[in-house]
């Protein structure tokens, strides 16, 4: 039966080539579109990690929900031991302290409401690989009164690197305090909103400004993003009962999950469309092939084959087509993905972003498996109806097709 099916597949080489082409290009399309969408997820995730949140943040319990309104109420004291515990985990690359505050930035003429972060500049510079310095330079540990601000803030206040600004904040005790800073640089991140409200100053300056030694959170940078979940779980166990909570970068960036859900749905629809196209193309070819061979199936049944044998033969022929087409489609998709990624696809800035980026096609095993299943499944599905119809055809009717 297998030999017969295999030979039948290559009986009409032109038609088989056309059918295979439909399957191959459909599968390759799923590989490319899936790899492209996956690249968006990865690049968006890495941009968020390396410009804003890090992989993980250890925060005082409740800070994430209510802390932005009054960060001074969610300070963590004595961070040395915490930092040591986290740093001891092999997957951890760096642990950085941050203190958050809100206030007004003044350029001598006007004020701009900002959200500030006191950071450890050199460590943050290592983490912030997706933070583009559009003017000036990165903040350094040696900058006692240096300030790095987002492009939106710089444009709003019409300041640039080298200008002096005054930062006005509420201290932990509720008093007003201000300090003068020199703008050392202007940054652009993935998010326009983030750039329009964020300023960064050295942690020591922030503590002095806020009149507090505490911090709001420890930002954890990992060697591999894939380790985020396991390390987060480990830290949650270790910090249980210590009024600390561990948030992953996904939890800290609500819109990331929504973006993934949106693109996943779009990709799902695209897969369905490709599946339908392959299905229609293969159905047409299988219908033609079955119609031409009605007499042959009649002969099979006359010689003693049952209806199931006829059904299985037709299905096996299509399964072989689906298998060959699926594998070749995956191969073509991988080759094209590598070739396209070698050049890169220049992308415009996404909505609510300032920076364009270079997209790639990622070769993802799950996408390859899905693409293969789309090709194989569509081919098998396309065969069910003609195979069932043929197997139910009376022998005498089928044999009449030979005359």
């Amino acid at each position, binding site marked *: 039966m297998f030999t017969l099916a295999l030979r039948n597949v290559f009986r009409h080489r032109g038609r088989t080539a056309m059918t295979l082409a439909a399957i191959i290009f459909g599968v390759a399309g799923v590989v490319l579109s899936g790899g492209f969408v996956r690249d968006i997820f990865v690049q968006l995730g890495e941009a968020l990690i390396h410009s804003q949140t890090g992989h993980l943040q250890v925060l005082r319990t409740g800070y994430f929900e209510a802390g932005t309104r009054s960060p001074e109420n969610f300070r963590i004291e004595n961070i040395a031991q915490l930092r040591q515990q986290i740093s001891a985990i092999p997957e951890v690359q760096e642990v950085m302290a941050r203190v958050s505050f809100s206030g007004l930035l003044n350029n001598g003429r006007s004020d701009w409401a900002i959200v500030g972060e006191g950071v450890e500049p050199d460590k943050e510079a290592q983490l912030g690989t997706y933070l583009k310095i559009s003017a000036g330079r990165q903040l350094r540990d040696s900058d006692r009164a240096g300030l790095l601000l987002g492009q939106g803030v710089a444009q709003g206040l019409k300041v640039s690197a080298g200008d002096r600004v005054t930062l006005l904040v509420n201290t932990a005790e509720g008093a007003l305090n201000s300090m003068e800073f020199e703008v050392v640089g202007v940054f652009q991140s993935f998010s326009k909103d983030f750039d329009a409200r964020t300023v960064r100053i050295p942690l020591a300056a922030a503590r002095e400004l806020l009149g507090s030694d505490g911090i709001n959170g420890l930002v954890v940078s990992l060697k591999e993003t894939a380790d985020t979940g396991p390390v987060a779980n480990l830290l949650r166990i270790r910090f249980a009962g210590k009024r600390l909570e561990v948030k992953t970068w996904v939890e800290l960036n609500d819109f990331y999950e929504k973006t993934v859900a949106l693109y996943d749905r779009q990709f799902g629809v695209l897969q369905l469309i490709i599946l339908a196209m392959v299905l229609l193309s293969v159905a047409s070819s299988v219908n033609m092939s079955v119609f031409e061979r009605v007499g042959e199936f009649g002969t099979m049944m*006359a*010689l*003693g084959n049952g209806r199931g044998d006829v059904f299985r033969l037709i299905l096996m022929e299509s399964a072989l087509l689906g298998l060959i087409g699926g594998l070749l489609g995956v191969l073509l998709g991988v080759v094209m993905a590598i070739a396209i990624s070698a050049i890169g696809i220049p992308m415009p800035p996404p909505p609510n972003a300032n920076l364009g980026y270079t997209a790639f096609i990622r070769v993802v095993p799950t996408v390859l498996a899905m693409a293969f299943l789309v090709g194989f499944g569509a081919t098998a599905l396309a065969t069910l109806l003609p195979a069932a119809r043929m197997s139910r055809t009376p022998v*005498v009717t089928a*044999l009449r097709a030979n005359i």
Partner: protein
Amino acid sequence: MVVRLEDVSKAYQLGEQTVDALREVNLSIEAGVFMALAGPSGSGKSTLLNLIGCIDTPSRGRVLINGHDVSGRTPDELSALRARTIGFIFQTFNLFPVLNAAENVEYPLLQFAELSRHERDERVRRLLHVVGLTGFAKHRPNELSGGQRQRVAIARALAAHPKIVLADEPTANLDHRTGRRILRLMRRINQQTGTTFVFSTHDQKIIDMAQRRIDLEDGRIVRLGVRTGSDWIYAMERKDDVSDDNEDAEA
């Protein structure tokens, strides 16, 4: 009796019209006979062969193969019966074009799990020898002449050692000389193996090679003949229907 038909009728529905292809046919076929079904086009020869071959079912009456009533059997049960009991030779040969001669002959045997590969090969080799195609085992049907294709079909029909071989117009697509050779081959196998052969034809010279003949007209058996030497003796004759046939026979 290998085959027995009792009051068998077959009617087809063509649009709103009912066509009676066979009418109340009673027939017994003994084991080992070499029988021709004769009659003009539309007389019911093919329908009768289809019913004997269990590839069609009667509208009324009973068909018994080897003493077993086949009415009420499912299509798959009938397939299983055909696989072991009945061999088919078709007018258009009906060989599988992607299989070579040996594979075509082997095809019906693939359903017999009890046969080993070696036994199948041996049987195929012997049958190809019987039909004179030993040197053509690896040839595909498109590499064979019409006569050679029909020889492969004969070998295939005999592969499962059937009780009866049915041949629907086996010489219709062959030139006269090749047709006679094919019939002689079938007759020789019939005599050597005792396999029952029933074939349909409207070629009088081919009919004359048969041992028995059944003449059909308008779905009815109008004459049953037995050959004695070069003459036909008619065991049954429906006088009102056979005037033309008698003239043909005399001619």
